[in-house]
């Protein structure tokens, strides 16, 4: 691999921005105090954490005291979903509404689906809403699913595999009408597109640092003032008693910096979209029988999901890897899984086509040359693999 390495898997994770790393540096072994300690030395750590909280809040148009830090997007989802669910079991006063019914969608990330499945095993009822062929939530089905017992709707902002952006504003109107909390997993949108919590109208919103050039192992949950939830990680009184554990000060500082940078780089989406569309056009032109799951318009700027008929996803991935191009087939969390993507299946794509999927996700470091390179090597890879395929001969 002497040539330039081309990373096209930014939805899986991103490199930390140099400015982020630089911001974190002093907090490892210079300003290492525990933010909760009482001496002056520790107040520097505390101030750093609070400044980061302000930066996260600013990006979301929230108040700092509406943000709690977590160890990532997965934990933020767990805190939100289990926290609201369990508030209904425990003696929490002023819970918005009591009940045991949760609504989510069929295309959520495992970090939402698995907590929901677990709650089912604990006696909660969960409805999984369908999506159309573009991956857009069925609003009618959602409306019909809401009952007196519904306490929470959790629908992702944008899907990690196909990039489709969900109609969050409409869903939040429905949630408000029925006095139900609304959580959105915005792990794929924060830092990439607008995530103004008031415009979105959400009560809870999860984000993860490493998806937008922040550090791994840190995330946050926005909790609209007044939203009642019980703690998930129990321990000391950190983070308003909602998330115990010594603060990951460097990580939190890095997350704050990533949020600040995201605001500076708001124009970036345009570049990503241009490159993504170039890739799309090139594949369209050069490779027959490819389908493009995901909404044609309402979609993350950098995401291009494709299904290359008659060729299995992993095979393409490995061949691209040998050309120094990193992409994913489905999501990283599901890699090695034998099941075709639950997202593609929910969108009505047949199993064997879903097995042919590949995801390109572009980022800050990508260039026109990167796309040119992909468009040079990828058609040959497909041609070669189709030769091996028993379906290939039918064309």
């Amino acid at each position, binding site marked *: 691999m002497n040539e330039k390495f081309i990373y096209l898997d930014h939805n899986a994770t991103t490199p930390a921005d140099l400015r982020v790393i630089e911001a974190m540096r002093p907090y490892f072994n210079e300003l290492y105090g525990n933010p909760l300690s009482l001496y002056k030395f520790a107040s520097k750590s505390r101030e750093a954490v609070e400044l980061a909280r302000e930066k996260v809040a600013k990006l979301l148009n929230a108040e700092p005291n509406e943000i709690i830090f977590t160890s990532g997007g997965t934990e933020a989802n767990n805190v939100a979903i289990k926290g609201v669910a369990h508030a209904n079991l425990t003696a929490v006063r002023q819970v918005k509404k009591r009940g045991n019914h949760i609504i989510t969608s069929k295309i959520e990330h495992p970090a939402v689906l698995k907590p929901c499945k677990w709650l089912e095993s604990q006696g909660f009822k969960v409805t999984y809403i369908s999506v159309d062929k573009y991956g857009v939530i069925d609003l009618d089905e959602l409306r019909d699913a809401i009952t007196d017992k519904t306490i929470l709707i959790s629908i992702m902002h944008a899907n990690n595999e196909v990039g489709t952006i969900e109609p969050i504003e409409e869903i939040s109107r429905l949630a408000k009408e029925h006095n139900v909390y609304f959580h959105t997993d915005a792990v794929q949108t924060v830092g990439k597109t607008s995530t103004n919590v008031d415009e979105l109208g959400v009560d809870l919103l999860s984000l993860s640092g490493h998806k937008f050039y922040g550090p791994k192992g840190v995330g946050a949950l926005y909790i609209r003032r007044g939203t009642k939830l019980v703690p998930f990680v129990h321990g000391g009184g950190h983070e308003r008693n909602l998330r115990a554990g010594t603060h990951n000060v460097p990580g939190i500082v890095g997350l704050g910096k990533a949020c600040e940078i995201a605001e500076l780089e708001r124009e970036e989406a345009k570049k990503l979209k241009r490159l993504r569309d170039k890739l799309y056009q090139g594949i369209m032109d050069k490779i027959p029988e490819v389908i493009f799951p995901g909404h044609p318009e309402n979609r993350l700027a950098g995401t291009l999901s494709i299904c290359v008929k008659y060729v299995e996803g992993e095979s393409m991935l*490995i061949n691209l890897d040998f050309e120094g191009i990193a992409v994913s087939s489905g999501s990283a969390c599901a890699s090695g899984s034998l099941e075709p993507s639950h997202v593609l299946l929910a969108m009505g794509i047949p199993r064997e086509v879903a097995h042919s999927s590949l995801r390109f996700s572009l980022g800050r470091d990508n260039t026109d040359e990167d796309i040119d390179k992909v468009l040079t090597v990828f058609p040959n890879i497909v041609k070669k693999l189709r030769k091996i395929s*028993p379906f290939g001969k039918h064309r």
Partner: protein
Amino acid sequence: MALEYTDKVIEHFRNPRNVGVIENPDGIGKVTSPICGDIMELYIKVKDNIIVDAKFQTFGCAAAVASSSILTEIIIGKPVKEALKITNKRIVKALGGLPKEKLHCSVLAEDGVKSAIEDYLRKAKRR
């Protein structure tokens, strides 16, 4: 879980031997993995009870392609009866190992050769 393939797997995956279709084959095996739904087609040519040629087409992961490829190498030149005894273990060994999650892909190749030989034997009987 992410996967670790041996060099041998990768080599066979990148340069698979005996890819294709045999016109007028003596036996055809078409099998689908019950685990992942992937598909293999194997064509064999038999002369004097010896497999003289084999070609495959596989829709499957890298492990499945490599298993198919090495399988054809193993069976070409072998008596039908012996080829029938080939297990997925033998294929895995020839590949220098497979990740646990990918053992079923070698079973696909085992099923492929069994199915092709059975087809050959069925047709041979009829003749």
